[in-house]
C-alpha cells in the first residue's frame, strides 16, 4: 500500500508540475501587452480622452466639463462606500488604459492612493482636492494633517475641485481647451447657485432645531458650510461600533432640543439610527427618520440623485423638509 501510494503521489506530482509550467508559459506569452501610455507630458491617445475617476462624484463633474471630448469611467458605482470598495479584475484595465486618472485623495481611497501616486511615473494622475488651501480643510484637533476627505459636502469647495478637474483636462488635451473652459464656467455657475440654495434653505430651519443627526461623522463640511450642527453616532471610522454613551448622549440632546428627525445614509446600515429612534421614544419624546441622505456615494445613474447636483439638492431638501 505504502509503495503504491508513493508511486501514485510521484506520478501525480509530475503531472501537476507539467500542467503548472504549461499554464505559466501560456500566460507569459499569450498575455496581451499593456496598452502603451505616453510618458511625461506627451499625448498618445487617439479618439476621445480616456479618463478614469475613483468615486462617482468626481466622474460626474469630469463628465459635465469634458462633454463629448472624453470617455469617463468611474471605479466605484452607485451605493458603493469607498471605505468598503473591492477592486475587480476589470478595474485594473480601467486604470492602465486611462490617459488621465482623477482621485479624491486625503486617504479617502485608502491604500489605493499609494498606487495612484506611484502611477504618476507613467500616466497623468491628479488628486482633485490638491487645489484646496489646507486651512479650508477640516482636521481633527489632535491629529494635524489627517484631513477629513468628504469635501464634496461643501459645494464651494467642490467648485474648487471642479476647477482642478478642468485644468487637468486641459493639460491632458490642450486642443479642446476652449470647450473645457466654457463647460466648466457653465457648471461652476450651477454649483454657485446650488451653494446659495443650500445656504438659504438650511437657514429656514429654526436655529435651536438645526441639528443634523446621522450614523457616522461624514457631514462635517456640510455643517460648517451651511451652519447646521452635525452629530454622528460614530466617528469617521466605521471600525469601532458606537458606544452606549454615544447613544444616550444623543438621545438626551434630541429630547432636550426637540429635534424632529434623524437621518439614515445610503451607504450605511440604518440599524444604529433605528436604535436611536427607539431610545428617544422610550423617553416619551417623538423623533422620526427624516429620510435617506446620500453621503459617500451618489444614487443610481439616470435618477436625479445620480448626479452631484441632484444628490446635494436631495440632501438639502430632505433635511429641510424633515427638520422645519
Amino acid at each position: 500500500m505504502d509503495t503504491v501510494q508513493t508511486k501514485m503521489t510521484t506520478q501525480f506530482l509530475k503531472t501537476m508540475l507539467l500542467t503548472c509550467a504549461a499554464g505559466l508559459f501560456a500566460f507569459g506569452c499569450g498575455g496581451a501587452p499593456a496598452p502603451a501610455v505616453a510618458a511625461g507630458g506627451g499625448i498618445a491617445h487617439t479618439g476621445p480622452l480616456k479618463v478614469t475617476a475613483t468615486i462617482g462624484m468626481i466622474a460626474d463633474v469630469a463628465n459635465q466639463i469634458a462633454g463629448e471630448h472624453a470617455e469617463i469611467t468611474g471605479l466605484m458605482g452607485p451605493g458603493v462606500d469607498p471605505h468598503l470598495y473591492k477592486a475587480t479584475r476589470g478595474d485594473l484595465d480601467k486604470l492602465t488604459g486611462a490617459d488621465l486618472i482623477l482621485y479624491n485623495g486625503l486617504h479617502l481611497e485608502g491604500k489605493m492612493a499609494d498606487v495612484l501616486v506611484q502611477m504618476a511615473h507613467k500616466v497623468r494622475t491628479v488628486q482633485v482636492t490638491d487645489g484646496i488651501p489646507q486651512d479650508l480643510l477640516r482636521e481633527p484637533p489632535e491629529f494635524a494633517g489627517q484631513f477629513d476627505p468628504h469635501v464634496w459636502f461643501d459645494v464651494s469647495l467642490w467648485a474648487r475641485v471642479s476647477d482642478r478637474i478642468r485644468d487637468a483636462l486641459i493639460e491632458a488635451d490642450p486642443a479642446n481647451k476652449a470647450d473645457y473652459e466654457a463647460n466648466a464656467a457653465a457648471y461652476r455657475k450651477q454649483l454657485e447657485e446650488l451653494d446659495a440654495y443650500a445656504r438659504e434653505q438650511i437657514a429656514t430651519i429654526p436655529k435651536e432645531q438645526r441639528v443634523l443627526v446621522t450614523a457616522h461623522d461624514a457631514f462635517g463640511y456640510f455643517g460648517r458650510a451651511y451652519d447646521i450642527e452635525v452629530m454622528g453616532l460614530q466617528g469617521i471610522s466605521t471600525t469601532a461600533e458606537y458606544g452606549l454613551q454615544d447613544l444616550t448622549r444623543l438621545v438626551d440632546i434630541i429630547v432636550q432640543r426637540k429635534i424632529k428627525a434623524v437621518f439614515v445614509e445610503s451607504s450605511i446600515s440604518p440599524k444604529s439610527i433605528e436604535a436611536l429612534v427607539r431610545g428617544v421614544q422610550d423617553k416619551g419624546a417623538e423623533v422620526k427618520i427624516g429620510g435617506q441622505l446620500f453621503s459617500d456615494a451618489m444614487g443610481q445613474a439616470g435618477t436625479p440623485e445620480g448626479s452631484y447636483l441632484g444628490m446635494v439638492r436631495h440632501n438639502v431638501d430632505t433635511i429641510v423638509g424633515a427638520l422645519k
Partner: protein
Amino acid sequence: MSDGFWIVLIGALVAGSCALVGCFLVLRRQALMGDAISHAVLPGIVIAFLITHSRNTLPMLIGAGALGLFTAFLTSALERHGRLQADASLGVTFTWLFALGVILVSAFTGHVDLDAECVLYGEIEYAPLYRAFWGEIDLGPRAFWVLLGVTLANVLFVTLGYKQLKLCAFDPGLAAAVGINAALWHYLLMAFVSITTVGAFESVGAILVVALLIVPPNTAYLLTDRLWAMLTLSVILGALSSAGGYLLASALDSSTSAAIAVVSGMLFILAALFSPAHGAVPRYLRRRRLLASAEALAD
C-alpha cells in the same frame, strides 16, 4: 510582461510562501493563525499611528508586524504554559487583541479613518501597478520582489529545518528526546508565519492569505501521507489556484483574490471526492469491490 502575468505570478508566490508554513500550521491544528493575525494587527496599526501621526505604509507595516509576532507568540505561550487547546488559545488571543484595537480606535482615533482594510491591506489587482525602481530603471512590481524574498526565506527555513520541524509537528516527545529544542523551532515557525502573513496582507489583502494558508495544505493532506509531498503539492495547488482564479476573475470581472480562494476551494472538493487514498469516491468503490469479493467467497 503583461499585468495578467504579474498577477498570476504574485498570486503564485503568495500561495507558495503561505503553503510552506501553512502545512505545519495545519499539522499543528493552528490553521486559523492567518485569520487570527489579520484581526489582531488592529492595535498595532493604531499604536503605530498614535506614535507617528502618519497613515503611511511603513509605520503601519511595522505596527502590524509587531502585533503579528506578538499574536503568534502569545498563542503558543498560552498553549504551552496556560494549558489551553491550540484552537482555544488562538481564539482567546486574537479576539482580545482585536477588541483592544477597537477600544483604542474609539478612545483615541475616532476622527480618523483608521482600519486595517484601508491602511494596510493591498489588493492583488493593483499589485502590478506599484513598481519598484532602481534609480530610473523599472524593476517590475514591488509586491513581486517582496513576496519573492518571503518565499525564498520560507523555502530556506523549511529546507534547513526540515528534520526538526517534521519531528516537532508529528512527535514532540521524540523531538525532545533526540535533543531538538522544540520551543525554539516552534517560535521560529511562528516568526516566519507572521512575517509571511503581514507581508502578504500588505501586497494582496487578507482573505487571500487566510485562504492560501489553509486550503492548499489541507488539499495536499488528503492527497498524500508524506510531508515532503504535502509541501510540494500544496505549493503547486496554490499556484494552480492563482492561475485558475485569475482566469475566473477575468471571465466574471470579479475580485481576483476571491476568485483564487474559490478555485482553491474547488480543488479541495475535487481532492476530497477523488483523492486515491482518502477520497470519498475511491473509498466507496473499494468497499463495493470488497463486498463483491466477500459475496463471491460466500457463494
